[in-house]
């Protein structure tokens, strides 16, 4: 069989994927970019009109989009910090139960279980928990031992709506990151800890001097995935707004793109927002990768 024939087969195997990405990734990306410089109503048949940077000027001077950026950042940072830190602590403890692999597995399965529940279902469950008559109020009032129950308005107050969405997201994804950290932690050779123990190192010191440096590749991965994932949030906010929570506080960028395009029919502004979101995520990924690569530690 000749080389030429084999080249030809290589292309045949790759072709479906190439066609897919050309049609469903690159073409929409380019048309998003092009559309962001035009004025166009999604429903009208009129040809799009070139208006230069006006869509960008509009969205970056309107309160609406700036507020979305703020809402997204508050949500992303608010989720990201507890997600990446709590899951690390939990995973470290689970790993320390090395002698009981069955118990480790039970804990891992429990922590992971909310990730199985879909985004819409999670939001729905928590809507009832955050109801004025719901579990959340009952629980906090019980803890605080309030003589007269207080309604914390989990869904109605803007700040509380933000907190509530963060709690749901944290609940849903914390186990996922526990699993990832766990996989990274078990790959650290136990002999390193044994040597440190002989030298009399404390648990605290072992954590900072052995665990963290050797876990760096996993931590990098988690930081990037967690942040980008938080920035892209949609389902929980959609369900909240749909059931009457104040839109402004939780109007994250992806929700704003959806509303701008499908309720206000403004293709130009929606795509200008899309391109901005794309640039933000791109810069973030690149910058973060560069920062962390320079500090990579190897003990081998």
């Amino acid at each position, binding site marked *: 069989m000749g080389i030429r024939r084999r080249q*030809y*087969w290589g292309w045949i195997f790759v072709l479906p994927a190439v066609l897919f*990405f050309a049609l469903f990734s690159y073409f929409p990306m380019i048309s998003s970019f092009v559309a962001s410089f035009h004025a166009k109503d999604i429903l009208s048949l009129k040809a799009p009109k070139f208006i230069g940077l006006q869509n960008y000027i509009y969205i970056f001077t309107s309160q609406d989009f700036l507020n979305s950026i703020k809402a997204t950042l508050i949500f992303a940072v608010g989720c990201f910090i507890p997600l990446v830190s709590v899951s690390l602590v939990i995973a470290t403890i689970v790993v320390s139960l090395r002698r009981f692999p069955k118990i480790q597995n039970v804990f891992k399965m*429990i922590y992971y279980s909310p990730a199985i529940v879909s985004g819409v279902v999670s939001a729905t469950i928590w809507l009832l928990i955050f109801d004025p008559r719901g579990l959340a109020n009952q629980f906090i009032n019980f803890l605080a031992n309030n003589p007269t129950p207080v309604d914390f308005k989990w869904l109605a107050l803007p700040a509380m709506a933000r907190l509530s969405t963060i709690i749901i997201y944290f609940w849903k994804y914390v186990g996922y990151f526990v699993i990832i950290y766990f996989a*990274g932690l078990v*790959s650290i050779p136990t002999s390193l800890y044994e040597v440190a123990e002989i030298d009399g190192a404390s648990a605290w010191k072992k954590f900072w001097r052995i665990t963290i440096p050797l876990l760096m590749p996993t931590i990098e991965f988690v930081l990037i995935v967690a942040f980008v994932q938080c920035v892209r949030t949609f389902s929980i906010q959609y369900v909240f707004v749909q059931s009457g929570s104040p839109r402004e506080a939780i109007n994250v960028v992806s929700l704003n793109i959806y509303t701008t395009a499908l309720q206000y029919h403004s293709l130009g502004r929606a795509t200008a927002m899309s391109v901005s979101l794309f640039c933000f995520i791109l810069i973030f990924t690149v910058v973060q990768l560069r920062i962390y690569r320079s500090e990579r530690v190897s003990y081998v």
Partner: protein
Amino acid sequence: MVTVAVLILFAVAILVPIAFMLISSVKHPLDVFEFPFRWIPRRLHFYNYLQAVAGNDQKYYFFRNTFNSLFMAGSIMCLNVLMASAAGYGLTKFRFKGRQVVFVLILTTMMIPFETIMIPLLMLTIRLRIQDTYMGLIFPIMLTAFAVFLMRQSILTVPDDYIDSARIDGAGELRIFFRIIFPSVRPTAVTLAILVFREAWDNLIWPLIVVQSEKYKTLPLYIIRFLDEKYTNEAALMAVAVLATIPMFVLFFTFSRYFIGEGILTGAKG
């Protein structure tokens, strides 16, 4: 053992909402918001489940929408694994011009979040006249660069000798792909399949924008509609939630090692 206490406390906190869903789904609608909340229902009320599948309009769209979810997630899963493996095979075991360029171009799409192209994708599906159809639901999200990357990495480890000896024996390229490559990367393919199925099952945003008619709606959209109807009773809402979660729990308990096993450093999407 303070640390184990922490683990147990955390586990309880994680399980409370799931327990709340299960228990509320069999409570009488008037008892969902009782004070204080009873973890053991006073009376069982399975009628909620009937209401959940009948819907508030008594049209039983639940079954059609469940089928749609299964069909969509199943099709995407098969197409994704098949196309990603084929591409992975083509990219690793053949030397053709432009191979590196193709790989880099595919990987680059990992940097394109779905939210940034969903509106043009919708316009494209409208132009292709597949909006509000199964094709529109499935095709635009049937492959990801991550899948290609994963399968490529896995196929790289298949020894060339296997392929060469099969070729000498006169096996065709398709035969080699299905009989040699595919079986050797089965664990990765299963991991990918589960990941893809779950993501498709969970997907709200794409069905939300591409589908309008009830007969093509998926389960997340069914739940949203149930939620929107203000006279919905909350116990029935939790019954819908339970029903929508059962398939995933079955998958989770059957294949738990693919979900929580080691070496699963897989990318996920919100």
